[in-house]
């Protein structure tokens, strides 16, 4: 009497294609996946708890280490939340610089996505190209704050330094060069038949599925929902800027790749507008020597690289926050993993992990 049964395969926590220390339990029926169970917590550093024993000013560097590929966006999100809580007016020049940095960081982060995606699909040359262009962005950050990662540049009330001499020219040169470089990726990756076949029609997420999992960022836009907090909430100077909210149609791996690809070009447009409209003026609001926001609570959200990055802060009127909860987009997006993988082959699971684009520092916090 023949009988079949499923078996379990363990992937990680040390696995080259899981983007960090994610462990995934795959339940398999032959080669097709029945169920996927992500097991997280291998990088849980207790940041939310640590923030309770730091002053607001000291909290900012910890947000660098949440989503360490796009630190500027995290700095921006946290500072934005604290400013809303304490009702601080940020100078306009600082707002422009902040948006410019956040968008440059979005470019860098999406380039890392493209590099890791191509490694995961077996094209390790793509990584070399993506990291080459990322170095150009990191050079710009190196100029403004002297660090390649974990910047701590955007502070509560503004930014810490003004733009150094020569930054604008270098940023312009980079933005001018970018479309040419993206055309190169188009030739290398987009036109590659193996690459297309690995991504098209795989891990399809319908509108209902992404909404039921509360996914945000490029993952939800790939399914055809134009949800972008830069447009929906219009915080900072985003309402004054022109940019397109890129959406996909099918919600498959291919669309998730294309949405990020197009977003790089849109971000470049925003950076160009920021450079052109950069006003003169102060870069830092006046803060008291001991910064104490008033009693109260706030939930403030910004568009991080991976989706809705929210900070929920409870203040009890002391220099330290009473409670900070961080809504990390990677963590919430990870819920969709089961729906993305179930029914497909085991080889496709790697592409699915990669196109969710999770970062373990943000998932585990």
């Amino acid at each position, binding site marked *: 009497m023949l009988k079949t049964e499923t078996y379990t395969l363990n992937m990680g926590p040390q696995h080259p294609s899981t983007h960090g220390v994610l462990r995934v339990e795959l339940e398999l029926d032959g080669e097709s996946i029945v169920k996927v169970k992500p097991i997280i917590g291998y990088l849980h550093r207790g940041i939310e708890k640590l923030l309770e024993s730091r002053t607001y000013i000291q909290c900012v560097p*910890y947000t660098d280490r949440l989503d360490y*590929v796009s630190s500027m966006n995290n700095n921006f999100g946290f500072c934005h939340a604290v400013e809303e809580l304490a009702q601080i007016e940020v100078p306009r020049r600082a707002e422009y610089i902040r948006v410019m940095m956040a968008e440059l960081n979005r470019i860098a982060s999406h380039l890392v996505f493209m590099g890791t995606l191509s490694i995961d699909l077996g094209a390790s040359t793509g990584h070399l190209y993506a990291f080459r262009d990322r170095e150009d962005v990191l050079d710009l950050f190196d100029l403004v704050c002297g660090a390649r990662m974990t910047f701590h540049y955007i502070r509560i009330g503004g930014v810490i330094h003004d733009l150094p001499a020569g930054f604008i020219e270098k940023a312009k040169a980079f933005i001018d060069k970018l479309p040419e470089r993206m055309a190169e990726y188009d030739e290398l990756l987009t036109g590659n038949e193996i690459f297309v076949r690995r991504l098209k029609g795989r891990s399809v997420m319908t509108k209902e599925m992404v909404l039921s999992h509360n996914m945000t960022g490029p993952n939800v836009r790939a399914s055809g929902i134009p949800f972008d907090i830069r447009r929906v909430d219009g915080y900072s100077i985003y309402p004054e800027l022109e940019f397109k909210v890129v959406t996909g149609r099918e919600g498959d791996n291919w669309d998730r790749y294309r949405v990020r690809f197009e977003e790089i070009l849109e971000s470049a447009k925003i950076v160009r507008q920021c450079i052109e409209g950069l006003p003169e003026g102060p870069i830092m609001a006046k803060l008291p020597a001991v910064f104490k926001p008033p009693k109260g609570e706030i939930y403030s959200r910004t568009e991080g690289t991976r989706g809705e990055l929210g900070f929920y802060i409870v203040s009890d009127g002391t220099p330290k926050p009473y409670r900070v909860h961080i809504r990390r987009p990677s963590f919430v997006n990870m819920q969709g993993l089961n729906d993305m993988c179930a029914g497909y082959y085991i080889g496709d699971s790697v592409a699915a992990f990669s196109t969710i684009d999770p970062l373990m520092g943000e998932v585990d916090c």
Partner: protein
Amino acid sequence: MEIVDIVPPMLKNNVIVTTVDSLFKWAHGNSIWPLSSGLACCAIEMMSAAGGRFDIARFGYEVFRPCPRQADLLIVAGTLTWKMTPPLIRLYEEMAEPKYVIAMGNCTIAGGPFADSYSVVPGIDEILPVDVYIPGCPPRPEALINGMLKLKEKIMHPEHVEKAREVLLQQKLAKMDRIKEMGGAGK
């Protein structure tokens, strides 16, 4: 009589006489195969080091292996938590001898900014024997390359490291003696 002396004169220019041990050390020091194990932020800098600009391949260390059986260097890049510790120790134990460990980044060395967290290991040397420490948050790729060259020095000339350690120990002992003397004088 040295072995060099029995080499015929006509071959003197073409033959190198050495020990198997030093030949092995020379080869090993120039082709370390790291395990591609990234934990957190430092892993991104590790990837940058393998990228085009820093190009760790110039030194022969670009062969990042996903399997511990093929690797001989464990770069612990990023924050190590207590939950990740058993898998990491298992990885280390699965690696074949001779094997080395590089602690990359402040988190790995001493907990870094998370030193007072309940879930972070306050220093990897409580768990694994470390050969090279690279401080920084995260260290630049140049620092990683420098660390790997230090490791090469250690592999090729272990006696230098021993000597340096001896000197450090003597200095420490001398300092302790001085403190003792000063304490005695104070009384």
